[in-house]
């Protein structure tokens, strides 16, 4: 009897130890760097505690205007993304037309690419010497409106982000029952009026969730405004340039900006939580909405709208694939086609391609490992420590990538507290950890969801059959969670390989990823290499997506 008790305690310790290890990891790689930024923003060695950095930001319109600009582009882009995304999802759900599966895959691909690559391609298409611009002016003498600045950023964000809205709403349509639409029709509410009075209110919780995600992405994206914004500076651009300016950069001021960014993100997140609570209700569709056949002019409109939107969304990607085969000389595309860009990309940027596989690979292993343990602890062994871990793990969800990058750079430059311990700046490790920490929330959510699907009685059944708790965890629980985790991990993987805002701050020549390489090549004007690398990245993304579909057995993605 005494013996069993001892074993018992030891087993409990394993979960306790796992919890503590995870907690310490989060303290080291999340609480410490974010706390460090907070400290830096308020505390200077000369002045001690002061709010000077903040008053500098708010008192000078040169700085504070960027915040206003950010809100302006993010709100406008969210608005347009909502309109296009909802429209497209509505067409998909209500009407019968060919090629839906193909279009859906294209939409997913469009949503998975790095926004700044879209920006760069749109410059090639609609910029001052873009193909479409010069085509229109040569043939029609038509002058395209300027794509740089506000309108260009909004265009790129909208086209980049409406696929997310589409995927969200598309999923939500599945929970609307056909009978609800028929009931509305029975009461004489049809067509547009039915959409606004019945369908849209039912979609509202999803619309809000999607809008938040899109707004946050737009608000924290830094590559797009950097490339296409020209004089139009947004907040993430300001944070980046203040930190990496030629004159050494003002880390304290950049930290203050980072703190402002966190506060804004947090407020929007909480606002969304409050608002979505009001709209929350649950639906369950026995008979999903049936698509209708359309004819005549309506049919033409449906095809034009759906194919037109999707084509516009993938156009930048397609154009980059095309230019990757063109002969180039710097920024100028020459006549004739060859694989020169690819050869050059491999010879000069070969290590970045390798890094794009290597760094996310290590990160994804960490992500899976942590996600399995965190979700298990949070769901099955709830206590003070595991709840703290659960809340901590969600923080990176709302902290912009640039902010985390700055936090990591300033915190680990000379090790923790300047001690030399964990002075990992410039190493592969810092990139691996930053990727893992940023993408963990997604995989944790998906593993928590799959764990909730597993009835505790399955674990109890294993125990009653003589299996110890640890054995049950590895033999029963983890294998049952695996499909969900792998699916979530592949999605995390895709977002990692197209990540820019953190890696642009943390990379060195040896740890440069493809996205960083594309960005630097675009800045340097090596358009051929950039196009070739973009194509390679796209191939990675498509392959990963195919893998995801095979693993999850679905041709859909829920976010």
């Amino acid at each position, binding site marked *: 009897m005494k013996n069993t008790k001892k074993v018992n305690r030891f087993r409990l310790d394993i979960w306790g130890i796992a919890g503590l290890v995870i907690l310490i990891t989060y303290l080291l790689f999340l609480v410490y760097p974010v706390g460090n930024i907070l400290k830096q923003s308020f505390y200077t060695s000369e002045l001690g505690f002061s709010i000077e950095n903040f008053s500098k930001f708010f008192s000078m319109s040169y700085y504070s205007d960027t915040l206003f600009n950010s809100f302006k582009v993010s709100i406008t882009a969210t608005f347009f993304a909502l309109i296009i995304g909802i429209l497209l999802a509505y067409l998909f759900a209500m009407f019968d037309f060919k090629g839906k599966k193909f279009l859906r895959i294209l939409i997913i691909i469009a949503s998975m690419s790095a926004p700044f690559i879209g920006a760069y391609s749109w410059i090639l298409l609609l910029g001052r010497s873009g193909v479409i611009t010069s085509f229109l002016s040569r043939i029609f003498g038509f002058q395209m409106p300027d794509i740089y600045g506000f309108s260009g950023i909004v265009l790129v964000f909208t086209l980049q982000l409406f696929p997310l809205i589409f995927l969200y709403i598309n999923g939500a349509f599945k929970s609307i029952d056909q009978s609800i639409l028929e009931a509305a029709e029975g009461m004489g509410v049809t067509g547009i009026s039915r959409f606004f009075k019945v369908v849209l209110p039912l979609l509202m919780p999803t619309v809000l969730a999607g809008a938040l995600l899109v707004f946050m992405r737009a608000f924290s994206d830094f590559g797009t405004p950097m490339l296409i914004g020209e004089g139009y500076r947004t907040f993430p651009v300001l944070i980046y340039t203040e930190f990496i300016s030629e004159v050494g950069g003002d880390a304290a001021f950049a930290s203050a900006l980072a703190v402002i960014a966190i506060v804004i993100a947090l407020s929007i997140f909480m606002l969304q939580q409050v608002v979505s609570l009001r709209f929350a209700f649950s639906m369950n569709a026995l008979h999903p909405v049936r698509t209708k056949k359309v004819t005549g002019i309506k049919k033409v409109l449906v095809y034009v709208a759906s194919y037109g939107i999707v084509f516009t969304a993938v156009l930048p990607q397609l154009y980059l694939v095309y230019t990757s085969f063109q002969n180039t000389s710097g920024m100028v595309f020459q006549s004739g086609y060859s694989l020169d860009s690819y050869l050059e990309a491999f010879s000069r940027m070969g290590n970045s391609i390798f890094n794009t596989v290597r760094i996310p690979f290590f990160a994804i292993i960490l992500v899976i490992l942590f996600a399995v343990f965190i979700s298990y602890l949070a769901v099955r062994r709830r206590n003070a420590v595991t709840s703290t871990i659960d809340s901590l793990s969600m923080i990176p969800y709302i902290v912009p990538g640039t902010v985390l990058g700055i936090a990591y750079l300033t915190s680990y430059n000379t090790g923790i507290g300047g001690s030399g311990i964990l002075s990992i700046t410039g190493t592969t490790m810092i990139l691996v950890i930053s990727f893992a920490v940023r993408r963990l929330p997604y995989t944790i959510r998906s593993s928590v969801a799959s764990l909730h699907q597993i*009835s505790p009685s399955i674990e109890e059944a294993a125990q009653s059959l003589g*299996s110890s708790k640890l054995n049950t965890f590895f033999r029963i629980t983890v294998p049952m969670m695996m499909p969900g985790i792998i699916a979530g991990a592949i999605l995390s993987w895709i977002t990692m390989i197209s990540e820019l805002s953190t890696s642009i701050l943390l990379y060195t020549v040896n740890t440069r990823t493809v996205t960083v390489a594309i960005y630097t090549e675009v800045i340097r004007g090596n358009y051929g290499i950039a196009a070739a690398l973009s194509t390679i990245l796209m191939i990675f993304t498509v392959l990963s997506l195919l893998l995801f579909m095979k693993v999850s057995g679905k041709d859909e993605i829920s976010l």
Partner: protein
Amino acid sequence: MTLIKIEHAKKVFDNTVVIPDLNITIKEGALFTLLGPSGCGKTTLLRMIAGFNSIEGGDFSFNEKRINDQEPSRRNIGMVFQNYAIFPHLTVRENVEFGLKQRKLDKKIIRERAEKYLKLIQMEKFMDRKPEQLSGGQQQRVALARALAINPDVLLMDEPLSNLDAKLRIDMRKAIREIQREVGITTVYVTHDQEEAMAISDQIAVMKDGIVQQVGSPKSLYHRPSNEFVASFIGRTNMLNAELKHNEEGIAELHLQNDFTIPYPKLNHLDDQQVRISIRPEDFIRIEDTTSVDTFKVRIEDSVYLGLNTEYVVSLTDKHHIQVTEESSFDEDLNVGDRVHLTINTNKINVYCADGLTNLSEVK
């Protein structure tokens, strides 16, 4: 075979006492059912025996060996769950072998034992299938084989049939009963379905609010329920207020409120008092020739024809409604508003004291 003894069991959830003080002894090889409405603590008690719920007080023992502090995995129990709890990523065979593998048995023995139990539940044809290809009933059979394959000391079943449809439930309870007899294992069975409990059990403990109301065979629970709760929970019954009085000859009589009087010499030894009488619907007898028997008049308010029986709701002269069941016949022709005469099969009634907590017919 294992004797289960539970003494002064206590269970507290978040400062609420769910089971205050419970004592049960379960004989070797018996199929013992915990029966009660939802929230009565029956599943809680079963999970305390299994080890999935903590025990706040008392002693649980298998054959005099205290198990309170043992891990569930070391109690050598077989458990069958309401939702089957089949491992979905393992085949039927692997499910049954799972427990055997934990015991580090020889591979050949594992295979043989798994096959033996799969044959017992007639699932040997489906050995290599994944659970998702099985129906609910088949999954529950596999769960039973998996639980039995490890030769457990006790078998615990938590509402194993309530996710199955009505017809399958009856087949399965027969199968469970047969297999349990064949294996001869002490079994604790939890259900809220009194018919299922009656059909399957050697002994039933009727529970309410964490307290055992009565332990007994299905027959004794039905015919001699020890209190008003058991009387109305097992089967259906009419509870009527009455007065116990002795006539001039000292014979006890029950005076119903409609002035009908039942001579009840069994209770001669008691003082005059208010009582509650439980009369099952089938213990009212319709009398057409009223000359030889004492009867009382009722009016038919409603009737439901159920094939074997016809159920009537009738009103007494004191306006009380009671339920009466009669075997149906082709010639029966009683309509709402008809007046008929009834008498009572006094052998089968139960008399309780006014608070309904004690069966006076039982008191010797």
